[in-house]
């Protein structure tokens, strides 16, 4: 571990970025499939939103691995947002998207209330934005 490395981050490679980006896309794709069930099954909205959150987190890891060579290992996903913010350009916008997405995480995964249709749409839009951002960062070179 280098002198600058903290226990809250782990080094990662361009190959790792590609793996996490593939996972993000797959989470997003399955989230879209489950979203189609949400109209008839309320609990499906929570599952789709959870998958959207996973897509966003995987996309964030991908972007951080590609641009910074490190990703967050902290339990608090806001630490991942702090790393995302260090990517230029538009890392700050991506970080804001991740923070909004993570705000929905607890309701989606552990909440006893159903995720609303509007929140699900927001989660899908945020996840899609993060996957697009990560794809752009990963393909820079």
């Amino acid at each position, binding site marked *: 571990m*280098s002198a600058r490395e903290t226990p809250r981050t782990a080094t990662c490679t361009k190959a790792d970025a590609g793996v996490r980006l593939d996972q993000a896309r797959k989470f997003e794709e399955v989230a879209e499939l489950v979203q189609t069930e949400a109209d008839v099954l309320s609990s499906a909205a929570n599952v789709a939103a959870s998958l959207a959150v996973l897509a966003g987190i995987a996309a964030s890891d991908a972007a951080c691995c590609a641009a910074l060579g490190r990703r967050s290992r902290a339990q608090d996903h806001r630490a991942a947002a702090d790393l995302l913010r260090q990517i230029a350009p538009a890392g700050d916008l991506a970080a804001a998207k991740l923070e909004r997405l993570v705000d929905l995480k607890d309701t989606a995964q552990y909440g006893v209330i159903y995720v609303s249709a509007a929140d699900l749409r927001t989660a899908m839009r945020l996840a899609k934005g993060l996957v697009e951002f990560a794809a752009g960062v990963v393909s820079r070179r």
Partner: protein
Amino acid sequence: MDLSKPATAVVPSADADVLTVVAGTTRALTGREIQRLSGRSLQAVQNILKRMVAHGLLEVLEAGSAQLYRLNRDHVAADAAVALLDLRGRLFERIRQQLKQWPMPPAAAAVFGSAARGDGDPASDIDVLVVRPENVDETDRLWAGAVDDLARSILRWSGNRASIIQVTPAQISDMMHRNEPIVASLRRDSVLLTDTSPLTTPERAGSER
């Protein structure tokens, strides 16, 4: 243009790799981090860093015994370095803008294949899928002219030949049912050029009937 490393159209490849790393973050990085992220040899990276520091394009920060490097974003050349980061994005944006000017707008359009993945080489085609509205004939003069213009523009903007595939929503639907490879490629790697994805056009066409 090599869409896997577009900046090499402007600067030598090792310089392009280092510039891409330092312009891609606001974080100050060690020489070894830049070496690892750029995939270049430490010696080559050190030489490039030394030159960029001498020109003032990079600033050096001391952190204990380590030296950290960061792009000096106030430098007059910094904007050029940052622009090199997103040449693919600029190319796709130009295509989007041209599509908006079409007299008969496509139902959807996307770049797919190597250009969307960010790999390939200077000889690679740029694959574009354009969804033609059902009520527009392939031989329609305005439509065909717009497709030809787009191909010429892409060649002019990038140096790469455009391979433009035209399909209707009904044809996309058939391709999806047959699970054709192009559908997997669109799902996996496409960059949308319109608000609508080509893969949702059959659904939309159905709901409009």
